[in-house]
C-alpha cells in the first residue's frame, strides 16, 4: 500500500502561502523520542485532521505548535511568523484548546472571556457577546464555569480561542467525552465556522470516523512518526472498493468469482454466510449475471465503503488504532 504514503518532502522550505507550516519537528525528552520529523502544511480555509492512536504524539506536537513545549529540532511557522523567534506575532494568529478546555471554575463564563480578552488586548464587549451567541451560551454565561457541563466548557473554550479572530484554530480531540448529540453539534459548529469565518482548523483525533466526516486533508501519525498526508477523499477513492456477496451455494460462487481476474482478496466472512472481495464496482452486474447463470442464488450484493479504519490497518500493517 505504499502508494498511499506520500509524505511532505522533509527538507523543503516553509510554504509562505500556508497558515501553518511545520518542518522536521522533533521532541526528545531524555532518551525517549516523543515526536520525530513531523512536517506538514495547513492552508487557508481547510480543516486539517491529525490522526493517530492515543500516545502517538499528537498532544506533544500540538504543545509545540502553540509554544508550550520547545521542540528539540524543527520549525513551526504560523501565518509567516516563527513560533520560537516571534512568539507574540505567531500567537496572534492562533486560537487553541489543548487537551481539555480548562477554564477558571471559580469565575463565570463571562469573566473567563474577559480575562482572556485582557490578555489579547482590547477586545470590545460586542465581540464577546457575538462569540457567546455563536456558541449558544447566552443563558448560562453569567454562571460559574464549575457548574458547566463538559459540552458547555468545550463551547466556552472555543469562544475564548476565537476571541482575537485567529486565522488558525487548533483543537485537540474536540469531541472527547461528549455525548453523541454533543459530537454532532460540535461537528456542525466547526463546519459553520470554516464556511463563515474562513478560518483554518487543525483537529487532532483518534477517531477515524470523526476525521472522515470533518476534514479535507489528514496527516496520520503513529509512534511519533508521520505515515502520510493526503486528501481524505483521495485516500478513500484511491483504494479498491470492497464488495460483499450474500449467495448460495457459497462454494460454487467462490469458485466462479475466483476465476475472474479483477476479483482480489476473496474471503468468506467470519460468520460463514457471505463472501467479500475487492473489485471494481462496475463489474458487479457482469459477475452477478455469471453467478445467476451458473445456478447460484444471489440474495444481496453490497459495495462496502472503505473507511479510514481499513486504511489505517493497511498503513500500519494491521496494527489497528486505539
Amino acid at each position, binding site marked *: 500500500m505504499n502508494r498511499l504514503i506520500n509524505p511532505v518532502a522533509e527538507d523543503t522550505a516553509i510554504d509562505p502561502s500556508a497558515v501553518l507550516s511545520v518542518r522536521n519537528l522533533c521532541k526528545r525528552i531524555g532518551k525517549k523520542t516523543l515526536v520525530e520529523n513531523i512536517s506538514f502544511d495547513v492552508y487557508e480555509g481547510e480543516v486539517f485532521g491529525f490522526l493517530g492512536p492515543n500516545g502517538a504524539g499528537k498532544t506533544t506536537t500540538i504543545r509545540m505548535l502553540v509554544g508550550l513545549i520547545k521542540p528539540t529540532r524543527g520549525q513551526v511557522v504560523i501565518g509567516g511568523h516563527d513560533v520560537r523567534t516571534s512568539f507574540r506575532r505567531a*500567537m496572534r494568529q492562533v486560537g487553541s484548546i489543548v*487537551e481539555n478546555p*480548562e477554564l477558571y471554575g471559580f469565575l463565570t463564563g463571562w469573566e473567563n472571556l474577559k480575562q482572556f480578552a485582557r*490578555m489579547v488586548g482590547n477586545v470590545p464587549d460586542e465581540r464577546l457577546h457575538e462569540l457567546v451567541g455563536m456558541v449558544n451560551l447566552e443563558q448560562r454565561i453569567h454562571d460559574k464555569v464549575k457548574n458547566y457541563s463538559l459540552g458547555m466548557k468545550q463551547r466556552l473554550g472555543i469562544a475564548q480561542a476565537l476571541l482575537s479572530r485567529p486565522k488558525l484554530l487548533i483543537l485537540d480531540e474536540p469531541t472527547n467525552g461528549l455525548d453523541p448529540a454533543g459530537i454532532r453539534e460540535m461537528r456542525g459548529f466547526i463546519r459553520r465556522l470554516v464556511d463563515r469565518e474562513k478560518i483554518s482548523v487543525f483537529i487532532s483525533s483518534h477517531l477515524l470516523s470523526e476525521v472522515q466526516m470533518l476534514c479535507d486533508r489528514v496527516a496520520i501519525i503513529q509512534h511519533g512518526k508521520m505515515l502520510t498526508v493526503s486528501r481524505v477523499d483521495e485516500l478513500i477513492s484511491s483504494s479498491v472498493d470492497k464488495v460483499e456477496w450474500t449467495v448460495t451455494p457459497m462454494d460454487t460462487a467462490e469458485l466462479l468469482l475466483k476465476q475472474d481476474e479483477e476479483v482480489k482478496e476473496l474471503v468468506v466472512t467470519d460468520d460463514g454466510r457471505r463472501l467479500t472481495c475487492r473489485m471494481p464496482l462496475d463489474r458487479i452486474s457482469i459477475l452477478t449475471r455469471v453467478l445467476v447463470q451458473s445456478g447460484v442464488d444471489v440474495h444481496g450484493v453490497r459495495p462496502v465503503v472503505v473507511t479510514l479504519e481499513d486504511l489505517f490497518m493497511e498503513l500500519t500493517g494491521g496494527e489497528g488504532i486505539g
Partner: protein
Amino acid sequence: MAEFMRLLFNELEKIYRRKRIAIVIGILVILIPMFVYAQFREVQTTVERLGTADWRVALQQQIIDSQNRLNSSRIPDEWRDWLQVRVEQLQYYLDHDVNPNAPGAPTFVRGFMENGIQLFIPLLVLIVSIDIVSGERSEGTIKLLLTRPVKRWKVLLSKYVAMGLLVSLLILLVGILSYVIAGVVFGYRGWNIPVLSGFVIENGSLNTRYVHLLPQWKYILMAYGLGWFVSLVVGTIAFMVSVLIRSTAAAMGVMLASLIAGGILSSFATSWTDAKYLYSVNLELTDYLAGQMPIVEGLTMGFSLVNLTVWALAALVISFVVFIRQDMLQ
C-alpha cells in the same frame, strides 16, 4: 505598560475571586480576639498576684524572677547571656520610668507584629502566594495563559507584582484589624507612649549608648515596615516554590517545613552558628528593634537584612529562569 496593567488586574481578580483575601480576614477576625482575650487575662492574673495594678511593681517582680533564674546553675550559658541582657534592658526601662507594656490598642498592635513575624504572618502570606503558579499548573489553566500573544516573563511578573500588592494589603489588614479589635478591650489610645529602641548587644552584654525614646506610633511603623519586608521575602520564596513544584499541597509542605525549621533551629541551635544562613532563622527582625539578644550567634539586623535580600533575589531569578524555559507538559 497598558498590557501589563491588564495582566495585573487579571491576577488580582483571580486571587480575589478565589476568596484568598476573605480567608485571611476570616483568620484574623477569629484569632485576634483570642489573642486579645489571652493578653487581657494575663494582665488580670498579674494584678491579682501582685495585688496592685502598678506596672513598676510588675516590672520589678519580672526582674527579680529573671535574676533568680540567672542564679540557678542548671541554666545553659546561651540562655544566661540572653536573660542577662533582658534583665539589663528591663532595668533600663524601670530606671527611665518607661512602661514597656503600657496598656492600649497600639501596644497590642506592636506586640502582635513582634510575636507574629516569625510564623503567623508568614503563614498568612503563604495563603495568598503558594498556589499563584502551581494552582494554574495543576488546574491546567496555565495553557490558556501561555498560548496568548504575551511573553512568559510578563505573565510571571504580573503574578509576582500581584503577590507583592496582596502581601502589602495583608500587613495593612493585620495592623488595622488588631487595632480595631484590641481597642474594644484596651482602649484606642496610646500612640504617643514612649518606647525605647536602639539597644545594641556587644559581646553578650547590653550597650545602652544609642538607646533613645520613640513615640510608639513611630516604633509601630518601623516594626510593620520590617514585617512587610519579611512578608515579601517569604512571599518571594513561596513564589519560587510555586514555580518549581506543580502540586500545591507539596509546595505548601515545603514552605511550612522550612518556616518551622527556622523556629526550631533558633530555639536550640545555639552552637551551630551556620544555621544563621537559613532564611527562616532571620525572620525576627523586630527583635533587633526591641533589643533582644538573638539566640544564634552572629545574627544582627544588618546580617539578617542582607541574608533575606539575597534569598529573595535568588528565588526571584530562579523563578523567572525556570518559568521561561520550562516545557509545559501535562
